Every structure is written in C-alpha cells, then in structure tokens.
C-alpha cells in the first residue's frame, strides 16, 4: 500500500490553518488593517483547517483501492 497524498496534504493544511488562526487570535490587531479590516488570518486559517479535515473525511469515505498497489507488486 502506497502513501495516500491526502494524508500529508490534510496534516499540512490543518497545521497551517491552526498556526494562522492562533496567530490571528493572539497577535497584534493592528495587522488586520492591512487587509482592509478583515481578520484574514483567523478566517482563512479556519478555512484551511476545514479543507484539511475535508481531505481526511474524503479519504475515509473513498480510500485508495487496494488493487492499485497490488497490481504493481504481484
């Protein structure tokens, strides 16, 4: 069985999302001025976490077919 790319991708986006969200909540509020008053770190960080979680749900629902890996190393 080979590595499913959805796992590292999900982990990366969960981590990046959490870092952005955490920084947005704890960080300097002056920073949001640059994005025209939108708290982009928090909102986009949350969006990335949702995306990461969605990848994991997708993988659970439709795992890589075992056949694909077996066919290759008979």
């Amino acid at each position, binding site marked *: 069985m080979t590595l499913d790319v959805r796992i590292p*991708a999900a982990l990366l*986006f969960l981590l990046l999302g959490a870092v952005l969200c955490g920084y947005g909540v704890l960080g300097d509020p002056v920073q*949001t001025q640059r994005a025209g008053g939108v708290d982009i770190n928090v909102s986009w960080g949350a969006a990335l976490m949702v*995306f990461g979680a969605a990848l994991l749900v997708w993988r659970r629902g439709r795992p890589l077919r075992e056949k694909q890996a077996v066919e290759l190393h008979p």
Partner: protein
Amino acid sequence: MTSTFLALAPIDWAIVAIYFAFVLGIGVYLRRRTTTCEDFFHAGRCLPAWVCGLAFLSANLGAQEVIGMAASGAKYGMATAHFYWVGAIPAMVFLALFMMPFYYGSRARSVPEYLRLRFDEKTRAFNALSFAAMTVFSSGISMYAMARLIQAIHLLDGPFATLGLDPSWIFHTSIGLSAGIVLVYIVLGGLTSAIYNEVIQFFLIVAGFLPLVWLALRDIGGMDGLRNALPAEYLHTWAGTARPETNLLGVEWFGIAMGLGFVLSFGYWCTDFLVVQRAMAADSMSAARRTPLIAAFPKMLFPFLVILPGVIAVATPGMIPAKVDPQTGLALLDVAGRAQLDYDMTIPAMLMHYFPSGMLGLGLTALLASFMSGMAGNVTAFNTVWTYDIYQTYFRRNASDAHYLAVGRLATVAGIALSVATAYLTTRFNNIMDMLQLVFAFVNAPLFATFLLGMFWTRSTGHGAFAGLLSGTMAAGLHHGLSLPVGAGVGVKGGWLGVLTIYPSEMAQNFWTAIYAWTACFAITIIVSLVTRAPDESRLVGLVYSLTPRPVDDSRVWYQRPTVLATGVLAMTLVLNVWFW
C-alpha cells in the same frame, strides 16, 4: 532593482519552514517505497486520476506562471487569458480523448520512446536530445528567476544582516537551497514524490492567492469597480482582434487561433513529456485519459487567480512599483516621460499591500511552491528521458532494473547540477540564453505535425517524420531570420537574414514563426513519406488510430467518462470566452 521589501515576521518564516519540512518529509517517507524503476520513473503507474490531474497542472507552472501571468495581466489585461482558454484547454481535451490511448496503451515509457515505436531511432534521438537539453535549461531558468526574485524583494536581507553574512551571497544561497530541496525529494522518492509535492503545491497556490484576489477585488469595488477604473480593452479577450493594431496584444484573431491555439498549444500540451509523464502514472487507461480533463477545470479558472491580480494592480494607482535606475536611484521614464513600471513586482507588491504577517508567509510559500513545482517537473522528465532514451539506448542496453534505478538517481543529481550551471550562465550571458530559448522554440514548433501524422496517418514513415522535423525547425529559423517585431533591433529578436516583414508585436512574430514551422513539417512529412517505403502495418497496431481498437471505457460512473468530462470542459471554456468577449 526595485525597492519592494517583503518584510517577514517570525510567524511568516515559521509557515515557510513548515512547508519545507513537509516537502522533505514526503521524500523521506517515500524512500522506502521506491525500490524499482517502475516506482521511480512512473510512480508505480498506480495513482488515481485526480492526483495525476493536479500534478499535471502544477508541473506546468514554471517560473513564468504566477509572476509572469500577473505581469502580463497588468500589461495586456484579460486578453492574457488566451494563453489558458485558447492556448491550453482545447489541446488538453485533444490529448485526453485522442492521444492518451496511444501514449498509455502502447506502454511506451516516454514520449520519445513512442516516436521510436511509431517511426524510427533517428526521430526518437532528435526528440530525446532536444527535450533533455530543454528540460535542464528550463529548470535552470526557473532557479535563476527564483533567486533573482528573492534578491529583488530583499527576502533574505534581514536574516543575512542578523547572522552577519555577506549580502552578496543571497543569490548563491537561494540557488543552493532550491536546488538542494528539489534534489532531496526527487532522488529519494522519484516521480511519486514529485507528483505528491505537485498536488500539495497546487493546493498551496490556491490557498495563497485566492484570498489575495478576494481582498484586492473587494478593495477596488468588485468587477464593476474594476470595469470603471480601467479602459474597456483591459477586460476583453477577443474584441478588437480583427486587426493587430486595435488590441493590447498586437495580434489579430487568426494568429491567436492558429499560432497560439493550434500550433504552440497542441505542440506543448500533446507532445511534452513533462506533462504527459503525469498522465502516464495513472492507474488505468480511463484514469490516464481523465488526467488532462481533471486538470482542465482548475486550469480554465487560473486566469482569475494569476491574471486578475495583475489587472487589478494596474487599476490601482501606485500599486506596481516603478523601475528604478540602480545607479541614480531615480525612477526610469519611458519616451513619453511616464514612469516605467516593474511588472514582475506586481505580485510581491500586492502580497505586501494586502496581507498581514501570517498570511504573508502563506502567500510567499505559494510563490516559492510555484517555482519549485516547475523545477521538479523538469527534473523528473529529464531523468526518465536520459535513462531510457539515451543511456539505455546508446550506453548500456541490457542491465538490471537496479542498475537503471541507480542511473536514474544519478541523472537527477546531474540534471540539477546542469540546471545550476544554466542558472549561473544566465547571470553571465543573457543573450546566449535568449538564443537558446529561440532554438528550442524552433525545434518544438513543428513537433505536433509529426505526432498528428504519426497517430492518424498509417502511411507516414520514419524518414518522412525526421525530414519533416528538420525542415520545420529550419522553416522556423528562416521565418525568424527574415522578420522583426516593430521597434526591435536586428539580432536575437529576428531579422538576421534581412528584414522582409515587420510584425506589430513580438507575440505576433512568435505565433507566425510557429505557424510556418508547423506547415513546413506537415507538408514535408507527407511528401517524403509518400516517396519512401510504406511501414509494415502489423507493426503499427496500438500506435496508429485506424489500426487500434477504440479504448474500452471502464469508468465506474457516467461523470467519469472522458467524453462527458470533455464536453463539460469545452462548454465552460466557451462560456468564459463569451463572458470576457
């Protein structure tokens, strides 16, 4: 040099570091699973279509994509989208429906190997050698462009000052780091590693640029605000293309449709092993055919991600920095006395303007990812063509699988070393690079004629194909040598044989060079084929359309059928063309 400073906070560096840790981690993880040539060069031919499709898209994102498309968007407006809606989508659909059955079905291991099976050794050698040289050259250019960008946005100035290092080493450090990272993850995990990273790079590019477009568009008042802020021609693609003088590109509709839409685009998407290799890694014929179609959906939306920011930037006064004379520090002016804009700085300037620390790190990561995916794509295509089409053919024919695997890994190291050499050569001799790029354009322009005749005309022969390729390349050179874009000097821009025609723009000249090359190759291949001995038809089964059983569609559900996807792709592309008429 400009004075755009991308000032990063520790949080931004942390985000860049997290990304690089994942890139290297994937390579290390896949190391244990990469034990045969099939794993290393073909990713085991076991990947689902959507993985191959996203990798197909990312591998094509070279140095020019994000930075260059935003710059073109600022210069030429939405007409730049022709490079997507005309110059990519139709060719991707053609590749999926008509050409993948031969690439995947013939079990050729590379595009040059298909030419060997269909025609003969000399045709393969011509394609393999020019392709290998071109991949090394392109990845070198990517590397160079990335290092120059890092210098120009003063990315490493802060860390270098803190560490007390000599700032003149920033360029070398950038080259070394990008080469080192790509080297590690490809040597370890081969094509699987490259493809997995390309998928993640695709997600990152969307994650980094989508909020940028959203914030910028919101700032200017949506599409209506943008329309009000710009002359009308910036938001049109076809209007004004009746004559070259009445549109920003300086090309008429026929040049766009034939030169870009047919010759250049089909020549690239349907014959370039860099992209075809991704589809060949798919787990079945129907997955291989779906690969370019799945890539086509995001591809047709990319103009909104990479071109629209440029258009918005040019509508926002002061957004694009002016070019500055490095000696005097004053802004450079054009003949009309206006400041010359440094269009390549569009994206860095927008990132700096709209993103706070945190998001800035994500945006920068997306930018770096786009450079690395282009570099890695070229390197994996190079190591495969080198190992199978050059080494196995001319150096050592019947060695063990383990031997060729080792050769592939060594070829990766050599390919990256040659790319680094190219990057440094570019800093020394800019003209030589322009000339090389030109030669590659000459070699590539006629290629699609050869494949078209090879796949659909049983009578075409090896001698015909080879003669056609040579004469197509010569026709391209001849046309370039006899024409010149308006306002350019004789030399690398053309006219070195005497000036017969003046084109309204360099783009028009390029498109017409391609049209002449293709026509010459098409005609000469037919003529020479007819006077040489016909190929043995029994040898061509699986290689030519009329002698190959139609591929059986093993898609599990209706929406996975290539014809259904292709219809959807073409319909959506048509809608986009009409929307931005």
